[in-house]
């Protein structure tokens, strides 16, 4: 748990413009009150079950396990949740909170578009107007999700500043919030941002780990040897890690975007290669130059293309409780193919990073050991990019 001001060790906190401070304090109060309220949980649990399709299954990947020839691989199927990723868990929670707080408008930032779609979905369900900020580069890469958001009635605002990706979308959402703070709810999709977002988003996502722990025990009669999840801002990873933190023997692995390779400088491996700093309201590891200017991240997956990371991950890294590794674009694509061909499951490119690492890890482990992978989303949204890659490969022949 963070301290009362939202610090995880030296990380986290609230580094925002004064104009937002009272809104963050109000949000924290409303969140704490909601979390204590049985009626709130009843409504949220009902929606998670009947609307989002929870619990999501835990699936034993038999053929992938056989191919790896090592540890038994289990997959937590967040890709089967409504809207196609784990993002719905958090947007349902925060959507109910926004309504409870009487906010008349919701804004959000999105990278891959999964959080944008999940936000637009919940806003449609609640009848609250919503606007989504999305980097122009991501609008191009994830056009399928942009179309979905618009069909759901959301306004998508392409952001043309900076690297035109998730970081810039978040800048623009913060500018909107500071302007419309009295009426607007800012629905952050990751375990990043100022306190209480990292804690609140983790809490709403922790349903993943609670289910997985129960399901895994039922399937294997024991705890997993290792838990693997991809990390951009870090919400799906915190969602599954949280329930396992109290079992020190369970090894936790976060997988960052290695992009074109860590030595190329074009990656999103914030925890592996970043330095401590402050961006978007909290202190954590950041990709930055020696002057403290934020560097552009690079990843084939828009959802991991972010130069920051949630403060609790920074703390888990510092304390050594979780280990962070990276997987390159090419390895992630191989992970995608592997799961497609061997299990008939097409993961999102973000989740493909976790699959690639889990497969590599399982190979080095004994058959008596187990790996639990969080498959945070499905790959439908990435078909455009995958087609481009294949065409590119053909052109290169």
């Amino acid at each position, binding site marked *: 748990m963070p301290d009362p001001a939202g610090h995880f060790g030296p990380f986290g906190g609230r580094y925002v413009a004064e104009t937002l401070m009272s809104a963050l304090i109000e949000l924290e109060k409303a969140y704490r009150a909601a979390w204590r309220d049985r009626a709130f949980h009843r409504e949220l649990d009902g929606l998670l079950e009947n609307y989002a399709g929870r619990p999501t299954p835990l699936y034993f990947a038999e053929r992938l396990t056989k191919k790896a020839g090592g540890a038994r691989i289990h997959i937590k199927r967040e890709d089967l949740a409504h809207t196609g990723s784990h993002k719905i868990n958090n947007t349902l929670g925060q959507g109910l909170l926004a309504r409870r707080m009487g906010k008349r408008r919701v804004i959000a930032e999105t990278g891959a578009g999964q959080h944008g779609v999940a936000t637009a979905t919940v806003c449609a369900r609640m009848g609250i107007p919503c606007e989504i900020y999305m980097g122009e580069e991501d609008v191009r890469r994830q056009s399928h999700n942009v179309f979905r958001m618009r069909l759901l009635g959301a306004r998508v605002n392409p952001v043309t500043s900076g690297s035109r990706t998730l970081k810039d979308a978040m800048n623009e959402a913060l500018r909107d919030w500071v302007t419309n703070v009295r009426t607007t709810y800012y629905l952050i999709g990751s375990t990043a941002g100022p306190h209480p977002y990292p804690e609140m988003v983790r809490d709403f996502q922790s349903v993943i780990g609670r289910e997985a722990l129960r399901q895994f025990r039922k399937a294997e009669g024991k705890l997993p040897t290792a838990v693997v999840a991809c990390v951009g801002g870090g919400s799906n990873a915190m969602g599954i890690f949280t329930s396992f933190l109290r079992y020190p023997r369970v090894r936790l692995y976060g997988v960052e975007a290695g992009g074109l390779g860590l030595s190329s400088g074009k990656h999103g491996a914030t925890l592996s290669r970043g*330095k401590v700093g402050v961006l978007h309201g909290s202190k954590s590891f950041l990709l930055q130059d020696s002057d403290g200017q934020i560097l552009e991240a690079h990843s084939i997956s828009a959802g991991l293309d972010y130069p920051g990371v949630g403060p609790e991950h920074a703390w888990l890294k510092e304390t050594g409780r979780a280990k962070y590794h990276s997987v390159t674009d090419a390895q992630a694509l191989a992970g995608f193919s592997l799961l497609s061909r061997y299990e008939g499951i097409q993961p999102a490119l973000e989740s493909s990073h976790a699959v690639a690492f889990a497969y590599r890890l399982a190979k080095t482990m004994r058959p008596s050991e187990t790996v639990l992978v969080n498959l945070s989303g499905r790959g439908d949204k990435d078909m455009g990019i995958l087609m481009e890659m294949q065409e590119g490969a053909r052109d290169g022949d």
Partner: protein
Amino acid sequence: MTAIDAAFRRLRSSGEKGLVVYLTAGDPTPAASLRYLRAAADAGADLIEVGVPFSDPTADGPMIEAASRRALSSGMNVAGALELVRSFRGTHATPIVLFGYYNPFYRYGWPFLCEDAREAGVDGFLVVDLPFEERGEVLPAIRKAGLDWIPLAAPTSGMERVLAVDREGSGFLYLISVTGVTGVRKALPPEVAAWTRKVAKATRLPVAVGFGISSPAMAAAATRFADAAVVGSACVKIVERNGRGPRGPAELSRFVRSLKKALR
């Protein structure tokens, strides 16, 4: 008594209102930026905020964001901004507040930064994304160097927070006029006057009102109950239009003179 205290004391005793000018360091180049700073001081700016550019200025509107980009591409950084202040100090005594975002300052390292800043001739710090609650690791270093920490208050702050920052801050209180980002506005909402009056009555520090003020008339109106007006984006706009051109500093000078005239 710091140079900023002295400046506000002098303003009060002469019965005039203060003018705080904001310019981004290194916009569009370090040398041109020095000429603009000198022009603003010569034309009567009582205090200058020198902005250290940041790649992700989330509290700024398009005007200052563009200035930050120009400054960054001219190679500006914290050390460069200190160098700029040092050069300015060779000719001018106008108090200088280093204005910026937390990360570049943090990267430089607060204890070193405060010492180097004092040595360069900086009088105070204003860190946009450092609220009262996170001051712990910064304020002791600023105090130790004998510099001022300029606190911010917003329309959303509420009196309790305003009084808390007023107790901890020094130099002056920067009162944000409207909820929003920096930028030129045609008018300020009518409730600004009442809010300013309430804050100025309750606080110990002199109050400077900023955000959106872009003309002499607006500056005069904003300072009806406050001690000073901050004009940023409207000055940066002149820099944007003229760049390194020879007429830029003269145009800024005319604008600053017109602002100051409205405050006497």
